[in-house]
């Protein structure tokens, strides 16, 4: 069976972001970019299913400017078989991304789509669910365990009170949580091999999906900074401050 893994290029998670002075957005010039951590986990899971003999092909797809090919190559180096780049300079909402992916799903006919639960830039946590809705598939969000058997996928999900396990008819959409697996590092020989793997480029607007968004960002601002606190010398002083100064206990 074929697995489709949508991946996103985002700011590296260790970078402390800076808001632009004109409040138009976050400054991304000369900032280190990387594969979204949840997408890395999604690629790893797909590659493991291939190594286990469950999957036959892993296809990765990314939407964005030419630079996203860097992240597609990373995914190929991690073990994906081929890549698809839907090129656009526009900043898309989850809904447009999901609509484009629904077209890719129609072309590729994967049995399973695995994607990250959220991108660490927009923090939306929407694309997987929207893709599942548009394709009519079942969804296993926030997955910490994925098992395939008898034409179904069993997904253990991280929910607020603990864990929940559901069974979904294939094809299905799974979104990854942090604890699904520990992604491998790409080895140098695999990085070299990844350069020879197929990477198709298509224009994102060739699918007939309207790429304009109904949501306008009016401004992006810096969060209120906290007042610098004080250091106390002892537990007694701490308890005293909490009782009499902060009055929280």
């Amino acid at each position, binding site marked *: 069976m074929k697995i489709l893994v949508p991946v996103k290029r985002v700011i590296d*998670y260790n970078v402390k*972001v800076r808001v632009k002075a004109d409040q138009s957005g976050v400054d991304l010039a000369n900032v280190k970019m990387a594969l979204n951590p949840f997408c890395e986990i999604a690629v790893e899971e797909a590659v493991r299913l291939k190594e286990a003999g469950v999957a036959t092909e892993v296809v990765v797809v990314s939407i964005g400017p030419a630079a996203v090919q860097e992240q597609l190559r990373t995914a190929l180096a991690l073990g994906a078989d081929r890549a698809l780049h839907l090129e656009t300079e526009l900043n898309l909402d989850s809904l447009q991304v999901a609509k484009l992916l629904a077209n890719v799903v129609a072309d590729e006919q994967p049995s399973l789509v695995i994607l990250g639960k959220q991108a660490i*830039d927009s923090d939306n946590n929407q694309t*997987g*669910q929207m893709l599942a809705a548009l394709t009519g598939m079942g969804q296993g969000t926030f997955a910490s365990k994925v098992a395939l058997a008898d034409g179904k996928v069993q997904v253990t999900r991280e929910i607020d009170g603990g864990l929940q396990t559901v069974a979904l008819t294939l094809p299905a959409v799974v979104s990854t949580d942090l604890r699904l697996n520990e992604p491998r590092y790409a080895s140098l020989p695999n990085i070299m091999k990844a350069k020879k793997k197929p990477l198709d480029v298509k224009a994102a607007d060739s699918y007939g999906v309207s790429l304009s968004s109904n949501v306008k960002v009016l401004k992006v*601002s810096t969060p209120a900074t906290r007042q610098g*606190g004080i*250091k106390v010398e002892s537990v*007694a002083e701490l308890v005293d401050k909490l009782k009499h100064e902060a009055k*929280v206990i």
Partner: protein
Amino acid sequence: MAILIIAEHNNQSLKSETHKVVQAATAIGGEITLLVAGANCQAVADEAATIAGVNKVLLADNAVYQHQLAENVAKLVAELGADYSHILAAATTTGKNFLPRVAAMLDVAQISDVIAIESADTFVRPIYAGNAIATVQSADRIKVLTVRPAAFRAAPTGNSAPVEAITGAHDAGVSTFISEELTKSERPELTAARVVISGGRGMQNGENFALLNGIADKLGAAIGASRAAVDAGFVPNDMQVGQTGKIVAPELYIAVGISGAIQHLAGMKDSKVIVAINKDAEAPIFQIADYGLVADLFSVLPELEQQL
């Protein structure tokens, strides 16, 4: 304007997040309808009817909604929601699961994790792990929002809105519930607690988390953890506070043995008072802590418990 809110519950009682979503909805203004979808959940609907500001409660009581599988609940909400101007749910794992599905079925965008309502079409939400705050305006005919409970007060009770049962079942037929494994806890829920005490990698192992119990008991606090503590297997992952875990904003947050990575701060930096206990004076947590104590947690925790 007509607002539809999907109630968060466990078929027996309503969760406090719902009261907070109602509070957020009153800032939009308009008739508020609360939908309770579940199985054998009449008691939840009765409880929902007492929330101030709610005009009507819809009760969809059917076996297909028992575990609130996204595929089934989304079908119901998308069908009902077409007549509303706003659809809201709490930004919990339940709300995050079904609401984007609803939005896509209605062909509108979703605004996630709203922390402030500026007007009926303008909302404020954090991005980049809370390091930037975006103000967004939606031109969609239906605004679909998940609301961050920690950012709103709970709406008071003392109402008696009418409860209307709706019949019919929406079974998408692509998913089934297998099992559930819930963490048992006598303590208040993390997201609703007035005081939260969290441990990090500095706790060294799971047994040492017991050092937090006595303090939590005395303060009536919930116990949380950093991702490092969860990944190391000290505690279960539903205790995780942070960008990818729970977002809390208690009156008092005590961080013990937590360095203060960006991803952790995203989940707690809106707490009213933050206390940090860490032996590393350079730990980033001290930059946001109101009160910091540079000391070994193993000597401090017993002392703190004793002095409370």
